[in-house]
């Protein structure tokens, strides 16, 4: 790979790659190697597939590509066969011989593997026809399923580094900033600050300026940044270079979680390849512009997602936030002007430059432009990453894309915005999702985590869960956050264990208001949100715990027991066989009995019964 010495060389290189792509008359099998599918065994499937193709002497005619996350993680490992776009979910090693024989060799579908839509119950064989994908607008995430993240050629052939070329040679820094400002792009990490204004402010300050990518994705339940870095690292790199040109920076950093090893690996490879081609380093593409990017691995501290804490961590110190009397765009990393944006924000930049601010700003709502990637997870049929225009309703996401709630259970709430957000009840399900609408009902859009909760989720337990998380992650510097969370946790644990008292709810409200007002950083000021919104919308559940000593969802062990509903039990014996405590007795086809003295409330029988005859009392 020789260095590309100028703009024309990059163009030539791209053209060559694109003509090669067009020539391909052979089949391409794309296999998702993202972390979700990987957890279901992509590596083994890949090896079996490559061996089988060799065995059948098809390896010269068929290309196999390990790609980044396709988004439909619930159905992993996912295989898509191009050019037709045949979609096979949940592919196992044992399916490979049949796929190769039938689909690859004979051009027929393997009927047993075709995806069945849970809503219409219809079989759908082509990827783009599946409702999960059909209702999305994947302008940022779309290339993930098509490119090998370790190949810079794959990225370049999909018009990669075109935005870099344009901004480097045709634009003045102010023009780039104006373009980003006009697009209406706002920070995707959760803050929603206008990106163009941040860049403009940083550029105004003198000194060695830094551009930094926040890949310390800490919100539990959100993983779009991981999937972007793993699946399309060059889009983030290109965004950062464009940002550096606009801001006037020669050094960039990506602060990424150590717990994301594949993201670190693919990013490292991508940076090396970009340097070799002369896209990073001294005199990029023969211009006068120098820029390089370094990786810094975080160490599992949630608070490091906060800008000042992140920069302290970059400097090799513990990540403790500082009061923001002076903003980081003026004095941040190494006391220099530092521009921090999140992974998804950076990945939006090349798209805006290529398609133009006008095109981009026509997507979305009045004040929230573009698309947003959400991680739709929890108690929903189609879990995965979903990219939709801002303003899409919760209902569309949960029911049309997500396929509804599994096992015919009842939807209860959707948690958005991670530990700084809140739980939104069913009555707001037609709310359009953007930065401002969710804030109106006491939650936030945040970085895009959407955790669906059903009737079996206890809202008091959810509040306790978030407070416990935040108590562990609080850096402990300021009193309101450190002590406030500790006391909140003690009260909530008491409620969950049946020691709740009259006045607990009011005390939680009082503590929450104090923390919102007086904590040092965003972690502390937003920490009470999950508790406060939760108490607002699900007060009856809190009261059931406190007054009646009952957990209606059957989660808080001291506050419920299981019973067998005599009208429903068929005496099938499944619960009896699965109970680890031998707490269930009964004869076949006769009503079974659950012995409370032996029951440990593990819930195995509850999950196992197909007739819902085990009930929470």
């Amino acid at each position, binding site marked *: 790979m020789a260095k590309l010495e100028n703009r024309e060389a990059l163009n030539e290189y791209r053209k060559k790659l694109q003509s090669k792509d067009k020539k391909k008359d052979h089949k391409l099998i794309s296999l998702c190697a993202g*972390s*979700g599918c*990987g*957890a*279901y065994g992509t590596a083994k499937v890949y090896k079996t597939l490559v061996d089988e193709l060799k065995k059948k002497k098809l390896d010269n005619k068929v290309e196999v590509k390990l790609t980044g996350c396709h988004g439909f*993680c*619930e159905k*992993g490992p996912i295989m898509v066969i191009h050019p037709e776009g045949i979609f096979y979910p949940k592919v196992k090693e044992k399916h490979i011989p049949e796929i190769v024989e039938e689909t690859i060799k004979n051009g027929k579908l393997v009927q047993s593997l075709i995806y069945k839509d849970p809503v219409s119950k219809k079989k759908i064989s082509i990827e783009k026809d599946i409702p999960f994908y059909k209702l999305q607008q994947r302008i940022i995430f779309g290339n993930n399923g098509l490119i090998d993240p370790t190949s810079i050629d794959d990225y370049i052939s999909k018009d990669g580094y075109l935005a870099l070329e344009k901004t480097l040679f045709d634009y003045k820094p102010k023009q780039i900033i104006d373009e980003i400002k006009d697009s209406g792009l706002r920070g995707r990490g959760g803050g929603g600050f206008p990106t163009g204004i941040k860049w403009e402010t940083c550029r105004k300050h003198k000194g060695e300026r830094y551009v930094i990518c926040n890949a310390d*994705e*800490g*919100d*539990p*339940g*959100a*993983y779009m940044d*991981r*999937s972007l870095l793993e699946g399309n690292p060059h889009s983030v790199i290109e965004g950062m270079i464009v940002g550096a040109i606009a801001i006037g920076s020669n050094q960039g950093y990506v602060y990424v979680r*150590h*717990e*994301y*090893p594949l993201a670190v690996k693919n990013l490292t490879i991508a940076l090396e390849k970009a340097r070799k081609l002369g896209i990073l380093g001294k005199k990029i593409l023969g211009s006068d512009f120098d820029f390089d990017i370094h990786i*810094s*691995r*975080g*160490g*599992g*501290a*949630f608070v490091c997602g906060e800008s000042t804490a992140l920069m302290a*961590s*970059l*400097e*090799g*110190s*513990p*990540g403790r936030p500082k009061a923001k009397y002076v903003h980081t765009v003026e004095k941040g990393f190494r006391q220099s002007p530092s521009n921090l944006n999140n992974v998804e924000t950076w990945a939006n930049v090349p798209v805006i430059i290529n398609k133009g601010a006008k095109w981009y700003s026509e997507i979305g709502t009045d004040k929230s432009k573009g698309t947003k990637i959400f*991680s739709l*997870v*929890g*108690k929903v049929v189609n*879990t*995965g*990453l979903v990219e939709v225009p801002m303003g899409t309703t919760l209902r569309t996401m949960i029911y049309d894309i997500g396929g509804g709630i599994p096992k015919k259970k009842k939807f209860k709430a959707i*948690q958005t915005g*991670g530990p700084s957000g809140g739980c939104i009840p069913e009555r707001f399900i037609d709310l359009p999702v953007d930065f401002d609408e969710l804030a109106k009902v006491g939650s936030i859009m945040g970085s895009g*985590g959407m*955790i669906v*909760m059903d009737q079996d*989720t206890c809202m008091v337990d*959810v509040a306790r*869960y*978030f407070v416990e*998380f935040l108590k562990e*992650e609080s*850096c402990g510097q300021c009193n309101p956050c450190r002590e406030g969370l500790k006391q909140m946790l003690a009260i909530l644990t008491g409620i969950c264990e049946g020691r709740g008292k009259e006045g607990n709810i009011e005390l939680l409200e009082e503590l929450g208001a104090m923390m919102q007002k007086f904590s040092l950083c965003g972690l502390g000021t937003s920490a009470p949100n999950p508790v406060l919104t939760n108490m607002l919308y699900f007060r009856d559940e809190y009261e059931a715990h406190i007054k009646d000593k009952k957990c209606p969802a059957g989660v808080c062990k001291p506050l419920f027991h299981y019973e067998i509903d005599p009208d429903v039990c068929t005496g099938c014996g499944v619960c009896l066989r699965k109970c680890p405590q031998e707490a269930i007795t009964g004869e076949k086809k006769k009503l079974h009995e659950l012995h409370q003295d032996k029951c440990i409330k*593990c*819930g*195995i029988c509850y999950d196992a019964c197909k007739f819902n005859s085990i009930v929470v009392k």
Partner: protein
Amino acid sequence: METAVDINWKAIEKIIDNYNRDPEALLMIMQDISDIYNYMPPEVIPLLVKKLGVKESLIYSVATFYKTISLEPRGKYIVSVCTGTACHVRGAEKITEALENQLNIKEGQTTDDGLFTLEGVRCIGCCASGPVITVNQDTHGGVDRSSVIKVIDDYSQQAS
């Protein structure tokens, strides 16, 4: 479990040199050392002080602040149960319980034979496959109370 390990000083020096003895890379250096020993042996600290020119107190401060660093020995296999929200609502606590029973240790402890350490981890970003556990670098998705026992058995067999 206070078994001191044989430290390969050359390997440690190489790690420090890989980062050009940059004190800003302190955390990453300790992470790389942890990758060899599954923990950060405190015996290494004087060398870090000397090579990086940082105070011993800073090293302890960083080592105790970040979750990925442990100054105490950990097992050959580090079993981490994801406790992110998506895994939590799908029953991660029950997975931890099952593992605690199987390994006969509590979260944060190491088995007597030094084979397994059980930990909780904050969201590893495999939310759609929850509940999820990782064993060292391997991820196991969609686990339940019985399948995690099998996962552990497989690693036990590999070790014996």
